[in-house]
């Protein structure tokens, strides 16, 4: 008798269960490619355990998306107000269809990732492209469309795209409130299962405890609730929120995010390796950018790049030899300047001024800058209190109000010039970081 359900062992979720249709997605070549894309790029050069791949992360995201969907659509957890706002909640057929879509979207949300994940994305794709646009193209490609058509009832690839990318990245598509909420379940700021899985999984593999939080409790207490408003009234727009009993788990998630970003994802050595890898790829790739054609995209994984990197490091005539050596011999640039509260008070873009001045003084080839600001809003979501009222999370949680925002600004210098540059910067720093009036320099600082 053929098996209709399959189980896969997983270090985070113990078992990930999938049915035969989902198994087809798993077995497709775009998905199998994720076995060869490191989840955290070259982070394994800093944290040796960080050698896990997008493949298992995607399975984890599917598992959690299914769990959250089942909790928030459970009849016991839905109020009449939400049932009126979201008619899909009243139809078993609709719920069955969308459960399948959300799990497929969760499984596919990363299939457009380039080699080494985010490390090289921005400057190594043609203008207007990012991994989400590639994901969209692959979901709608000949590789995947036959799979969607074989499912009963067939799944619309556009629905998978909406849920996998969300309104930010699929901004040419119109989203119903229901579709927006389902995409939030996967990639949302507050309770997106993409984030939940990567915090837990990265933490496990990296060997740090920062990313742990009680995701069982959090998921069990997630609810569809009206968005909080102001004293002139709310809008009754439905949103993903949490029961009061899950608020501490939600706080733990936000703290886990803060610590993982500040301790792991923005570790300065990890960041400079990303930059060196980008420098290498610009020279190593035939036209300096990745192809956006699905067939070409699927030919290239971390394996081919690692082989190219080793080859270039060993052969002085190969493209990208110098950048490959920097990575292979671990001679990365060192942090010369780091954002700090005193400088930010004088000039929030002090790092830009310092990077510009150093480059002008010594030459751009000796310096790299890495600037990142947290890309999300305040953790403001509805919380249903024990008396039934839905309130803003920031009105009832001291902790959420105090979670710091991650903002980094590093200037790295080549080791060959580091001491000289450091000395020069020490003498000129105070003058360099002073911002200028817009009349003096047309506003640039």
């Amino acid at each position, binding site marked *: 008798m053929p098996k209709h359900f399959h189980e896969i062992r997983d270090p985070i979720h113990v078992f990930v269960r999938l049915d035969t249709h989902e198994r087809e997605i798993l077995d497709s070549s775009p998905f199998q490619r994720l076995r060869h894309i490191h989840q955290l790029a070259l982070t394994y050069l800093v944290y040796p355990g960080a050698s896990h791949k997008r493949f298992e992360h995607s399975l984890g995201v599917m598992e959690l998306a299914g769990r959250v969907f089942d909790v928030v659509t459970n009849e016991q957890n839905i109020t009449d107000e939400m049932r009126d706002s979201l008619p899909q909640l009243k139809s078993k057929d609709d719920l069955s269809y969308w459960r399948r879509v959300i799990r497929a979207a969760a499984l596919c949300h990363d299939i457009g990732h380039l080699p080494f994940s985010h490390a090289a994305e921005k400057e190594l794709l043609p203008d207007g492209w990012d991994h989400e646009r590639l994901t969209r193209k692959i979901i709608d490609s000949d590789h995947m469309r036959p799979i969607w058509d074989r499912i009963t009832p067939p799944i619309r690839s556009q629905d998978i795209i909406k849920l996998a990318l969300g309104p*930010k990245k699929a901004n040419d598509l119109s989203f119903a409130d229901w579709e927006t909420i389902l995409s939030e379940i996967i990639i949302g700021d507050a309770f997106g299962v993409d984030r939940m899985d990567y915090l837990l999984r990265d933490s496990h593999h990296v060997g740090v405890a920062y990313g742990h939080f009680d995701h069982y409790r959090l998921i069990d207490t997630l609810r569809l609730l009206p968005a909080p408003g102001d*004293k*002139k009234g709310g809008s009754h*727009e439905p949103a993903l929120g949490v029961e009061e009993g899950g608020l501490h788990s939600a706080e733990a998630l936000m703290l886990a995010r803060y610590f993982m970003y500040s301790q792991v994802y923005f570790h300065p050595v990890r960041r400079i390796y990303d930059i060196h890898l980008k420098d290498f790829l610009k020279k190593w790739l035939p036209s300096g950018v990745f192809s956006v054609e699905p067939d070409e995209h699927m030919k290239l994984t971390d394996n081919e790049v690692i082989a190219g990197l080793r080859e270039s490091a060993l052969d002085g005539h190969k493209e990208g030899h110098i950048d490959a050596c920097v990575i292979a011999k671990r001679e990365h640039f060192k942090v010369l300047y780091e954002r700090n509260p005193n400088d930010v008070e004088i000039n929030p873009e002090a790092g830009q001024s310092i990077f510009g001045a150093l480059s002008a003084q010594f030459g751009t080839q000796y310096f790299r800058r890495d600037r990142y600001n947290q890309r999300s809003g*305040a953790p403001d979501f509805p919380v249903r*209190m024990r008396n039934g009222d839905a309130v803003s999370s*920031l*009105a009832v949680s001291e902790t959420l109000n105090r979670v710091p925002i991650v903002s980094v600004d590093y200037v790295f210098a080549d080791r060959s010039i580091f001491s000289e540059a450091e000395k020069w910067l020490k003498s000129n720093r105070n003058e360099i970081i002073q911002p200028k009036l817009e009349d003096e320099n047309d506003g640039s600082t």
Partner: protein
Amino acid sequence: MDRLRRAALLIRLMEKLREKGSWCGETHVQKAVLFLQDLLRVPLGFQFTLYKHGPFSFDLRDELTSMRADELLRLEPQQPPYGPRIAATPRTERIKNLFRKTLSDYDASINFVAERLGAKGVADLEGLATALYVTQHSGGCWSLDQRSRQITEIKPHISYEDARSATEEVDCYIRQAKEILAHEPAA
């Protein structure tokens, strides 16, 4: 527009909104910036898409977070059930001083938006912002009725009557804004 110049304009807008009685939470700022940029043509460079309470800019959300990281803005938590208000910190004086000319150039536009939206709540702003979005995306060929129906399709929790009233109000703003636009600096 470079980041700090844009920050100076956002700070001034938030100050003016609060002067006019705005709650000045994130939704209020989002919708006011939509009107400032898309109706008054102030070139802030934010991209709006339909999301929370109508048109929403993820870039603007990220920028407000960055401004909090730079301690230019802070959240003021409120009594339950309400969401927080956003306030400028004393540190913003330095930024405003750097961009006095820019602030003066767009003063009339900022006042226009603050006067009309300052007293509105989230529910009103959701209707008005969605009405502006639908009007601008209809290419000027949809009737009042068509646009009102479109709003109720996008946001089913908004009644037809509220959608129609919001669309009429936006049509009025569009007529009034022409006066300001005639005197604005070129983008």
